[in-house]
């Protein structure tokens, strides 16, 4: 409905005094809490839209549509406008812009709109208005009045009493939130709830049962006419095409053979303060053990053998006088699956040509399962001593180049496995030629070539300490003259030997 100037003047009580400044008309519309459109008869005409006295849009008739202006202002991009606007005829409806495109920054859009409105309102407020055209309850075709006020908002003025509560409303503590019935049949499909538990084989093949209302799917009591809406469409499916229960051998649940599992190892944490915390499981122990390099200032971990845990895991164990790690020796050398369980570190057999796969002590050898730091230290010292002895003997033989096998030569102690920085491990074993010293490697070219073929074991290659991994890449490649080791390693060995026999 459109009203003439006189009617509009009557509406605001300004009929006898036109022309009026624009701000007078705006104030009158605000005082009357006008809702609708006012068209100010100026050049160009200005359309001002009110919602209960508040201006939510003001635009000149010559201006482009609001969406275009927002894109030009940078508050939106063209794609957002295209997806967010609903085109109804020639009008782009922006009322659901933010719901359709959540990526839009609502604050920026609203702020930009307010700035445009302020500019237009400020301009028209300063004009002399000869006539106005009012259309009550006519909102802008873009629908942006939905941006500012929802349908549930209650219009309150200062001093107004609070609205009466909804009859069903109650304090949160007294009544749990009641499920809201779904009133829109278009969205009331009984889609399976995402939070519902996954159907099992039995439930999937079971006969369909009537759907029951639940908290996730709050439906009203189904009636005979609309039962199709409230029932789950999945339940309407028949089991045609599905095999009968038990007919598919792959689908028949069968019991797996029992796995022989021993008593699990117990995991302990030793904090820097000396406190021992054993409230951890074995799985966590393994994970922590593999990452212990990153926990320099943290606790020390250890795994207590299940066989020992049954007796006593006290730190005063006679096999562990220092009360420390029983597997520290192998903490860097036990993650290889070919080595067996964690407590079976790779060891070298003294036969040299026998078991080179690093099979560790078994549960039948409990005396080998408790490796203390004392043993580590002893082994380190033994290694150093033997290397130093070999170095001393090597100095005595500097004049000779006869490196033939001699029975009195020392056996290279070496290490059984070394860890690289990667996850790939290389096991260093021992060949049959044990009558060598580590310092003989400096003159490898003069030694008889007796490199054995590498023995692969489950992804790990046992290589000769002389040839290292070169034998794997090219077993027949001749050795180069000069020190095979890195010169720095060789120099360091000399330095250690010199210090030892200073």
């Amino acid at each position, binding site marked *: 409905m459109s009203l003439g100037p006189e009617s509009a003047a009557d509406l605001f009580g300004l009929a006898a005094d036109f022309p009026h400044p624009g701000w007078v008309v705006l104030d009158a519309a605000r005082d009357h809490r006008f809702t609708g459109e006012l068209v100010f008869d100026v050049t160009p005409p200005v359309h001002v839209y009110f919602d209960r006295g508040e201006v939510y849009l003001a635009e000149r008739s010559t201006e482009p549509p609001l969406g275009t202006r927002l894109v030009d202002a940078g508050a939106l991009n063209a794609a957002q406008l295209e997806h967010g606007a609903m085109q109804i005829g020639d009008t782009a409806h922006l009322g659901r812009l933010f719901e359709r495109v959540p990526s839009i920054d609502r604050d920026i859009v609203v702020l930009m709109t307010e700035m445009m409105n302020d500019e237009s309102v400020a301009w028209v407020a300063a004009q002399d208005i000869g006539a106005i055209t009012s259309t009550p309850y006519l909102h802008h075709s873009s629908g942006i009045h939905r941006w500012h006020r929802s349908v549930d908002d209650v219009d309150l003025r200062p001093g107004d009493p609070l609205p009466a509560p909804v009859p069903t409303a109650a304090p949160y503590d007294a009544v749990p939130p009641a499920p809201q019935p779904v009133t829109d049949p278009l969205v009331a499909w009984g889609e399976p709830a995402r939070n519902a538990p996954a159907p099992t084989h039995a439930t999937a093949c079971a006969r369909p049962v009537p759907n029951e209302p639940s908290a996730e799917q709050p439906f009203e009591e189904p009636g005979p006419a609309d039962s199709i809406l409230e029932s789950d469409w999945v339940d309407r499916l028949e089991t045609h095409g599905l095999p009968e229960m038990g007919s598919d051998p792959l689908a028949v649940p069968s019991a797996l053979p029992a796995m022989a599992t021993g008593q699990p190892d117990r995991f302990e944490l030793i904090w*820097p303060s000396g406190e021992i915390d054993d409230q951890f499981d074995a799985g966590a122990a393994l994970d922590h053990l593999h990452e212990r390099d990153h926990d320099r*200032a943290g606790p020390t971990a250890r795994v207590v053998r299940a066989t020992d845990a049954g007796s006593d895991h006290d730190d005063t164990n006679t096999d562990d006088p220092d009360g420390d790690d029983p597997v*520290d020796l192998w903490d860097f050398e036990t993650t290889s699956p070919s080595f067996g369980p964690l407590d079976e570190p790779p060891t070298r057999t003294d036969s040299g040509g026998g078991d080179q796969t690093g099979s560790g002590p078994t549960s039948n050898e409990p005396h080998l399962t408790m490796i203390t730091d004392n043993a580590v230290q002893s082994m380190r010292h033994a290694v150093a001593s033997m290397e130093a002895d070999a170095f001393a003997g090597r100095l005595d033989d500097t004049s000779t180049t006869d490196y033939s096998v001699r029975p009195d030569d020392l056996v290279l102690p070496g290490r059984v496995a070394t860890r690289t920085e990667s996850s790939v491990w290389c096991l260093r074993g021992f060949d049959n030629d044990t009558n060598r010293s580590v310092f003989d490697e400096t003159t490898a070219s003069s030694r008889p070539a007796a490199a054995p073929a590498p023995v692969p074991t489950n992804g790990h290659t046992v290589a000769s300490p002389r040839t290292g991994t070169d034998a794997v890449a090219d077993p027949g490649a001749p050795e180069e003259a000069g020190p095979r080791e890195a010169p720095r*390693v060789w120099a360091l060995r000399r330095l250690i030997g010199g210090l030892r026999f200073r």
Partner: protein
Amino acid sequence: MPAQVIPRAEHVFKLLVTGPFAAGKTSLIQAVSQTPVVETDVDASGCEAAVKARTTVAMDFGTYALHDDAGNSDVRLLLFGTPGQRRFWFMTDIMKGDVDAVVFVVDAEAEDTHAEAGAAMRSLLADLRVPVVVAVNRCDDPGDATLMARQLGALASEAALPCQLIDGNSAREVTIEALLAVLDRLERSDIEVLDPLERVVALAGAA
């Protein structure tokens, strides 16, 4: 008379000897060094004077060298000792560059220094990725030394050695332990990594 130019050693290893005040760092270097130790000891003052008469304020420096047949030193070990007082910790930051290993000396009987020593060691090792040997001075029990090292923050893989640094042999043992740790690190880094193709070839060859 022109100064005699000493030829540069082919291989140089640098050890950093650090630890709290009056732990035995200077004694360790003096026991190992072949050359007169360059030291910056001055008379101790304050409460430190009650512990010992002189203290290092800047650094200790000692060397150990191996000579080839021509008499030239081809392998040289440099030992750098740091001051123990907290106010001189900046010297540790200066000297810690390019070290091959750290010898952290701690006095087992000076328990009042352990908390600060642990913080200093963890702070130092947070910056350095080098082997460390914890030398527990005035201690005879390896178990006690290990436990003390753990309390200071050392890993189980890092050596803890009981020692009596007043004895030269014990000091050399500590130094050798540090060099063994360096050797261990060098050997690990020298291992080649087998790629899956090489594994397959090796398996096929064995079959």
